[in-house]
């Protein structure tokens, strides 16, 4: 019995049990202080569905041997451009969402491929270089947002009529189309089948991808490049496929994120986009060499639930407005903790 228990603990991992335990405590405190627990769960689920695909984007780069994709903003920017084109055309609802994805994916493929070429030449330091590629591209795109030839008055500054606004409202476009699709209630918890289903659909697709010939080749190339070469696998090409796939997922991820948030944020907003995703997958138990769909789901649920619930509960307990400070401490503290667990956190 004790042995079985230890095995279970080892399988799930101590860090995850600790965070889960902490979450339970938070929910108990919330219940004791008369907060609405179902509401907290509802909010957490929305955050999970909103961020899930961005976390999923970490899986291909880890498994092809490039490591965590700190260059995630590249995919995010591709997604934003796709969304803007869809909005410029005045598409609304599901058509708007699908058009945004359809425009974003080819851009992400090209951007991802160029990014892969760059990473190829800095082998061994992909994560550090990726971070700075992300940062500098965000800055370059700030110029693009100002110069881009968008004409739709909803998108551009009201005065002067040139350049995109900081924050664009999606209400008239594809805002919340997934969130509001097939919503049902369970024990007072509102669940959006549209949002969760979309996330789980992508999880399933990626799971299936890793059971195809090319997916298995990518796993082998990441786990042991010499082995892969001896099996006739072109390691460089597999890395490129992994990076492109990750960039595409990031592009789709930001579109889902934006529709759930209701706003499209331009300029410096994508700058730090990689960090919460990195933190989530590491908390989920992935290492720099190995990540599974299970890591994605468990990591996103733990990280986002903690972020969503810890804040209202602490401000309720402390009785004062420390929200911004607390938010920074909690979210960055968790990212820091996750980075120290980059070996899989057993």
């Amino acid at each position, binding site marked *: 019995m004790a042995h079985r228990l230890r095995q279970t603990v080892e399988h799930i991992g101590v860090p995850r049990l600790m965070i889960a335990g902490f979450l339970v405590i938070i929910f108990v405190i919330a219940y004791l202080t008369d907060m609405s627990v179902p509401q907290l769960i509802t909010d957490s689920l929305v955050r999970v569905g909103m961020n899930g695909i961005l976390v999923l984007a970490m899986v291909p780069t880890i498994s092809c041997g490039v490591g965590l994709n700190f260059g995630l903003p590249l995919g995010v920017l591709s997604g934003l451009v796709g969304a803007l084109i869809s909005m410029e055309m005045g598409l609304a609802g599901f058509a708007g969402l699908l058009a945004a994805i359809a425009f974003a994916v080819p851009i992400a493929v090209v951007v991802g491929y160029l990014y892969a070429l760059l990473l190829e030449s800095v082998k061994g330091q992909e994560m550090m270089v990726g971070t700075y590629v992300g940062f500098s591209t965000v800055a370059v795109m700030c110029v693009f947002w100002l110069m881009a030839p968008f004409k739709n008055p909803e998108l551009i500054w009201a005065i002067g009529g040139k350049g995109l606004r900081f924050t664009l409202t999606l209400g008239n476009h594809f805002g919340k189309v997934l969130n509001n699709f097939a919503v049902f209630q369970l024990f007072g918890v509102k669940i959006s089948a549209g949002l969760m289903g979309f996330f789980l659909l992508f999880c399933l697709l990626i799971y299936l991808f890793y059971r*195809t010939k090319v997916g298995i080749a990518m796993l082998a190339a990441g786990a042991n490049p010499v082995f892969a070469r*001896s099996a006739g696998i072109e390691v460089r090409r597999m890395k490129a496929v992994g990076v492109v796939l990750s960039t595409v997922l990031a592009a789709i991820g930001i579109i889902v994120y934006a529709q759930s948030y209701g706003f499209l944020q331009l300029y410096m907003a994508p700058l730090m986009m990689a960090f919460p995703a990195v933190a989530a997958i590491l908390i989920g138990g992935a290492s720099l060499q190995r990540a599974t769909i299970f890591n994605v789901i468990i990591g996103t649920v733990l990280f986002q639930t903690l972020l969503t619930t810890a804040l209202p509960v602490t401000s309720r307990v402390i009785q004062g407005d420390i929200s911004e400070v607390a938010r920074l401490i909690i979210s960055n503290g968790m990212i820091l903790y996750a980075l120290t667990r980059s070996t899989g956190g057993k």
Partner: protein
Amino acid sequence: MERARRVLEMKGITKQYFGNTVLNDVSIDLCPGEIHALVGENGAGKSTLMNILFGMPVIHSTGGFSGEILIDGEKVELLSPAAAMQAGIGMVHQEFMLLPGFTITENIKLNREPTRKNALSKLLRSEFLDYLDIPTMRKDARTALDRLDLSIDEWLPVAGLPVGYMQFIEIAREVDKKEVRILVFDEPTAVLTETEADRLLGSLRRLAADGIAILFITHRLDEVMAVADRITVLRDGETVAMLNRDEAVVERIAELMVGRKVEKVELPPRDTDPSDKDIALTINDLLVDMPGEMVRGLSLSVRRGEILGIGGLAGHGKLGIANGIMGLYSAAGRVSKNGDNIPLNAPDQVLLKGLAFVSEDRRGVGLLLNEPIDRNIGVTAMQAQHKFLRPWPHFLPALRLENRGELRAYAEEMIRKLDIRCLGPNQPVRSLSGGNQQKVCVAKALALEPEILFVSEPTRGIDVGAKRLVLDLLVRLNREHNVTIIMTSSELGELRKICDRVAIVYRGRLAGILPPDASDAEFGLMMAGRVRKEAI
């Protein structure tokens, strides 16, 4: 030379790693001014013996050793490298331990610099703040370099010097240590060109003439003959001979190094014996750029259905052949199978041509250690030949799903046939024993259904019982499935046990082909490169 006094004696040294005896009652001694060569193949126990002499932590953390070490006739306990240095033992490493940005002088004197007091260091009574005495340092360095007959400026930075010079600076550092009376050279010529090696041998003689006792580890026999006063031959952790200069000849040493009692086993007969009339694989003028195992223009014909052994001393290129043909290292030359040209440097195409390879580096190249047995067995065949995949979509094989059922069934069949001891096809290969991992590697190659199978060092690092099983398996594959096998091994004994012919490689070329029942002396001669015999 006085033979009466011994500066170093190692007596009855026995060392076990995890119940595996790697050194058994080995004794060696050194007189002042003597060059004593220690020769033996890879794995003969040379490095373990040196690790013991230097009190390396790896020895003491694995249970220590038995036997005793005497310096100047007194028993010493060398529990750490520092203690060994204090006892006057110096070591010249195979890899250079030099700081590239520092000058030659600084490298030689590092952490042993002569110093001068200054006001601050006097005030604080701290040696850390003393000035370095640069002129004395340079003088000392100059003296050390002169003893090696090296005229290079002692104030040059090490970065950018030719490799040969770095080796000499390494030696100069040891020579500069006043207390050094015993110097160990661990394959110092491995990275040197021939002229550099000659100079090094000259320095060895000069140092010996100064009264330093030298222990010279190498497997280049001509160097041994050139400088050694006495020669100790190690094989399988035992001293097989101690020869004086006058009684040693290269052939005899080579024979002692590799000779093993060949237990003659009756191999199952064939219907038709392989012959030169039916050639399966022709290798013409093969060049392979594999570091440490360069192949420099090798030509060889492999008969269909035979087991061809490839032997030779380490570093002469026997391992490069299979690695080059399979595309793992860049290669040039012409290789053809049944008259069909095999493209080089293209691993995927070689696998399609019916060639397969069991690598000598089982854990590094052969396996995905964290993946389960079935995936390890199937992944090469899946990638190279589209096996174990579902049929749909036809037009895009890359997106076909893996057929888990088929793969699992195949893995289970292999586990049964090759007797892989495991918990099931799901077990990660990391947790298997060496012998069972090797069987997984063989199963992986068999999944490709090869006509020609390269096997390199199939028994390296696995225990005696498992060695037999692996060899029996190769014979069975050859006889029952008619696979032509090209087996490369450092263990001549096992080549002679199961091969039809044994090709010996010397300096990257074919030295000759011998029948397995040729005498030890013939093998020894050929491995030492003394004759070129026509293929039989």
